[in-house]
């Protein structure tokens, strides 16, 4: 397998998966925890932690070429416990899908369609995702490549239009560090990098076994997401200021709302940005949806995927309609973080330990 031909779709897969709601809500979350103008350093630290974690996951998957986490779990820890682990991982992917699309629905409801019921917004998204996922991984990768330039263009446009609103005094002092606060911030910035754990799922169809190409793929994906996040943090802090970030629900959109050119016509850029951003949510949803479906199918050995597909769609939809309001939604985010710890660190660690025990056999 040649590395160059195959690494680009995978890099795009990772970037599209990682960028999601974080870009809109993370600045507020981090501002409440860190609360100093150089809090973008937390993002870089978070990316670093995520990269280490990703490499660790790769070390596990490297031992089992062309197998997903769903395949190796039953092999390593026994059929039933393995299936339980699979189900936990599936629960995680479903929960994260539900969380991101509900956040999206809240934003769409606030800024775009205030009379359309959330159920309809979510249904449209889930149905189209259901269709995309049913066509298989190669098509998903193609789809992501198709929309990736649009996403990048929208981010670039927002950056260019916002630059003139930046007030440098908001970003200073840069070098006055309060290390402990920055480290506390890592706890939240780290979660905005989740998405790389789908390496455990992608490895089923792509031979990801050599150190060099995989480190390259992970480095480029997490690195470029980190660059985008840091850029948006600097824009957010520069345009809105730290104290303001703490009280704005969706800072990035408010930042887009601050764009105005004198005269009459160029206003309301936030609507345009939202269209691009919804695509990033859709790509994230697709990746997790696919992982969930694959997981369920591998666990229960189902032949016909359509039924499972519909079931997972229904589950995601129902789960996403569960929170009654935005405060409740954000509080679910904390529970989701615990679940992420399990899926990202506990499960790989457990499997890794067991792989040593039986390592010689496999």
């Amino acid at each position, binding site marked *: 397998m040649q590395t160059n031909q195959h690494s680009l779709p995978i890099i795009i897969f990772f970037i599209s998966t990682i960028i999601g709601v974080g870009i809109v809500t993370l600045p507020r979350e981090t501002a409440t925890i860190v609360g100093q103008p150089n809090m973008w350093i937390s993002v870089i630290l978070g990316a670093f932690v995520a990269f280490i974690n990703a490499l660790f996951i790769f070390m596990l998957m490297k031992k089992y070429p062309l197998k997903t986490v769903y395949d190796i779990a039953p092999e390593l820890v026994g059929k039933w416990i393995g299936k339980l682990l699979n189900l936990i991982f599936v629960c995680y992917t479903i929960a994260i899908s539900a969380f991101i699309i509900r956040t999206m629905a809240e934003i769409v409801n606030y800024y775009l369609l205030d009379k359309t019921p959330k159920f309809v917004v979510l249904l449209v998204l889930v149905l189209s995702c259901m269709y995309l996922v049913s066509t298989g991984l190669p098509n998903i990768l193609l789809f992501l490549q198709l929309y990736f330039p649009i996403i990048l263009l929208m981010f670039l446009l927002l950056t260019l239009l916002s630059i003139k609103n930046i007030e440098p*005094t908001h970003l200073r002092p840069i070098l006055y560090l309060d290390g402990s606060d920055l480290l506390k911030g890592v706890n939240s910035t780290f979660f905005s990098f989740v998405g790389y754990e789908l390496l455990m799922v992608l490895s089923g169809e792509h031979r990801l076994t050599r150190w060099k190409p995989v480190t390259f793929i992970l480095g480029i994906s997490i690195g470029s997401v980190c660059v985008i996040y840091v850029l948006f943090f600097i824009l957010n802090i520069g345009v809105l*200021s730290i104290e*303001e970030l703490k009280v704005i629900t969706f800072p990035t959109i408010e930042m887009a709302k*601050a764009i105005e050119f004198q005269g009459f016509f160029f206003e309301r850029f936030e609507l345009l940005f939202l269209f691009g951003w919804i695509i990033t949510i859709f790509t994230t949803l697709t990746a997790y949806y696919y992982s969930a479906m694959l997981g369920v199918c591998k666990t229960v050995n189902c032949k016909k995927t359509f039924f499972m597909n519909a079931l997972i769609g229904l589950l995601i939809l129902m789960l996403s309609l569960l929170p009654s309001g935005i405060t409740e939604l954000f509080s679910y985010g904390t529970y989701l973080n615990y679940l992420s710890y399990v899926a990202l660190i506990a499960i790989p660690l457990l499997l890794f330990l067991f792989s040593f025990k039986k390592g010689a056999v496999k």
Partner: protein
Amino acid sequence: MKKGLLVFLSLQLLFLTSCWDSNEIEDLGMIMGIGLDYNGEEKDVFSMTNQYVVPNNIEGTQTGSSGGIPYQNITLNGSNFFQIIRENSLETDRPPNYTHLKSVVFTERLLQQEPLKQLISFFLRDHEFRRTVAIFITKESAAEILAIEPTKEMFPAVQMKELTQNHNRSLYVQDTLKFGEVSKKITEGASFVIPEIGINNGRIRLLGAGIISNKTEKIVGWLTPEEIAGLKWVTDEVSGGLVAIKEKNSEEDQAVLEIMKASTTIEPEMKDGQLTVHLKVKSALRLAEDWEIKRDVFSEGWEEDLKKQGEKVVKEEIEHVITIAQEQQLDYLEFSTWTSIKQPAYWKKHHKEWERIFSQLPVTIDVDFTLTGYGTQDIN
């Protein structure tokens, strides 16, 4: 057959899309400006003036009949803003839409009674209001201001906002104060000034500014246009204007310098545990108007005298505004921002007692002018 049906069905997606939330643009009542007044009556405390666009009276449009006023003000009373907005629907068939709102005018009495924080919280919470809406304060009634016929623009609300765009023309004009900036100042807990708007011979005129205290978030004082000039020199907002020198204190010998470039740096420094602020003003100017006959601009050193006097004028302006601010114990001079940037350790320790520190803060002012020219011709 089955394939054909599928294609047909998917084509329907294109043709049958409907817009759940669509609002026809001609059915919207676009609002350009809001004026907020205080009634003081028990039941309906506030009065709100909405400036609607009347599209049919806009000249140049196809249906437009020239001559009519392109805006209509509707003033209604109520005890909260949302209620008043909804009450508009009892009198006009077009629902008000605030996405293109330009200016909001507060009357002085309103800001004496209610903290600004609570007055603007509704506007910040609602997604229709942009962060770029300009804010003004007036000593007149806000409804009256919005009713004045504008000079060049079509709407008074637009005219007001555009006036603040002249901040590079005159020292007396402050840059637009936007909703977003007010919100920033309030969350930071800083005092600030709101541009004042008034009426002069039936025309809208920018005046000084109203000072909002960070303690009460109500209006506590006023700045004159001359004091605005001093404030702009301190906060590094000068981008144009003039410095008038009355030489030898007589009217005949005056000279006017045009500001080409200006920059101010605020340097808080620590000396033996005592904070001092060094203000360094640098500016490049050009001789614009000269009433002195004897001056020979072709001989070297002609500018020395002008330079010194100009520096003195600006230094006095700055000293004056700093004295006022320190007497009021309100830091709208952005000294706190620069202290937190340049002396973060000190700031972290002392920011709670900043008012006290600020009021006794020693400030040194250093004005440095360069005269770059005298124009195209010197007839004297």
